[in-house]
Each structure stands twice: as C-alpha cells, then as structure tokens.
C-alpha cells in the first residue's frame, strides 16, 4: 500500500464508521485500484490515478439513519472545505481532494444540489446513471465499498472519452476501459457488458465503438466481448 492508498483508507474508514459507505459509490480513477480485489488477475494493471477521489451519490434523497455531516467527517481527517462560486463544496488536502457527484438525468439542470441528510452539496453530471444503476460491493482492505460494475465503468469511460475536449483525459479514459475490458472474463460480467451495451442509446453505442477504435488492442478485445456466441 502506498501513501495515497493510506489516505484513501482513512477516508473509507471514517465514512464506513459513520454508516455512509453503502450510500456512496466510489467512482473515478481510484475505482481501478479497488477492481484489483475484484479481478484477482495478474494481468490486471490499473492506470495512473488522479489526486481526486470522487464519490457518486446514486440517489438524491438517500435514506440515512440520522443526519450525517460529511464535511465534519472529512475536516476531522484534515481536509479543508472549499466552496466554488456555484456552491459546490470539495474537500482538500495537499495529496488528495474529495468530490461528490450526482447523476444528471434528462433535462435536470447543472445546478449544485444540496443533500441535507449528508450535509454536503453535490454536482450533477451527465452519463453517471450508467454507473449509479449498476453497482456492486467489493471488499477492499477490509471495507465493503460500493463501486460501479467494471462492465458499466468501462462503457461509461468509453462514452465520456468521445466527448472530451482534452485529448490527454480522453486517452486516460481509454486506458482505464482497456485495463478493465482486457481482464473481463467471467461469463456473467460479459453478459452484463452485452446487455448494457444493447441498452445504450444509438449515440452512446457509437461513442463506445469510436473510442475503442482508437486502440487496436482494445477494439479487438471489445469486439470479441460483444460478439454473440
């Protein structure tokens, strides 16, 4: 475990002790580390992580026993709360920062949403419902963490990669999708990948295939996974 993983563990521990881990979905590049415990495959090599730890709140009104204050929990770990001009709060330390996001569905606005039961404000973002609707629990370093199913994660990465304006970020999304799809071997996982792909809109399916085409290896892997037996 490296220093950053120690930092992540302390966040997970604090959220877990407050009964919040089941209400939050870990997303972003840190999921790639957690997937090591899911795949247990020596061929799996997670891509480089960013310094932000992103949590997705799958439901706008999570049913939580008693009111919680995530700000206080994180401040107790040494994080400082930073407000953006639109009211979004993120939590910062020199090594890491923590952000909370919500799926933005249909015509909902981009306005930051207050989640009183968690004592925080979250930012809605598009294409996160694919992650929120397909979650699994993985035991990582003794914590039961809720994460998106790897199949959903890889598809979402390929969708957003096609929409990125910054090429480095688009490449990073593809790196992550490639790492996950290369070791996706369980029959049930492959079936889920196919089902989710079929459920995507035509535009999203095109985005997935176009992003995969940028890497010959990934393109071949994805085609094989999506082929009907």
């Amino acid at each position: 475990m490296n220093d950053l993983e120690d930092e992540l563990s302390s966040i997970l521990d604090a959220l877990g002790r407050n009964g919040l881990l089941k209400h939050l979905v870990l997303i972003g590049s840190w999921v790639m580390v957690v997937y090591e415990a899911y795949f247990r495959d020596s061929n799996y090599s997670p891509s480089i992580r960013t310094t932000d730890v992103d949590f997705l709140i799958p439901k706008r009104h999570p049913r939580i026993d008693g009111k919680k204050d995530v700000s206080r929990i994180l401040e107790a770990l040494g994080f400082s709360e930073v407000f953006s001009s639109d009211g979004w709060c993120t939590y910062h330390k020199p090594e890491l920062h923590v952000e909370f996001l919500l799926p933005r569905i249909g015509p909902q606005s981009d306005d930051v949403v207050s989640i009183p039961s968690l004592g925080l404000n979250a930012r809605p973002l598009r294409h996160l419902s694919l992650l929120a609707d397909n979650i699994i629990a993985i035991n990582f370093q003794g914590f039961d963490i809720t994460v998106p199913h790897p199949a959903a994660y890889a598809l979402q990465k390929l969708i957003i990669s096609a929409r990125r304006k910054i090429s480095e970020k688009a490449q990073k999304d593809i790196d992550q999708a490639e790492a996950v799809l290369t070791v996706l071997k369980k029959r049930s996982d492959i079936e889920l990948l196919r089902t989710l792909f079929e459920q995507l809109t035509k535009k999203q399916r095109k985005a997935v295939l176009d992003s995969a085409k940028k890497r010959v290896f990934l393109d071949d892997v994805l085609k094989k996974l999506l082929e009907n037996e």
Partner: protein
Amino acid sequence: MSKVVKGVLEEELQRLLALKDRYQEKMKDYPPGYLLKREMRGRIYYYLSYREGAKIKQQYLGHLETDKVKSYKDLIKRKGELQKQLSEVKKNIVYLERLLKK
C-alpha cells in the same frame, strides 16, 4: 520527487510494461510485412513481403479474390496502427524510467 509521486509513477511504469507485452503478443496475430502484388501473364498474384534478419522473404499467397485482398490490407493497416501505439508505449516507458532514475 515526493514519495507519493514516485509511487504513482512506478505503478504507471509497471502498467506500461504489462501493456507493452500485451501489444507485442497481439502483433503476432497479424500477417508479417506488407502485401506485394505481381502480374504474370495477365494474372495478378500476391505475396507477403517481410524482413527476417538481414533477408527479405516473400511468402506466396497466390491469386486472391478482391475481398481477401481487402482483408489483408485491413489487417496490415491495423498492424501498423498497433505498431504505432506500441511505439508510443515504449516511448513512455523510456521517459518514465529516465524520470525515476533521477
């Protein structure tokens, strides 16, 4: 370089080394060299021309239907793209190895 940054870069290097092996293995799925066309007595024959050590070898494929020629061309084009991506991975490995030695 901070311990945290070094740790992250070392992991990235491991990822790239694994990726290099995977891409190199994948290269074997593609035909070697390039497609060579020759016309003899009004008929077109195809060869795969490739280098083996110091020698240039030619593998006879015979007369090919249009779709087969297209399929070979597509495979060779994909191999070229994969080769380019492999070169990029190798370049990043060299860069990270140099950075981590500092």
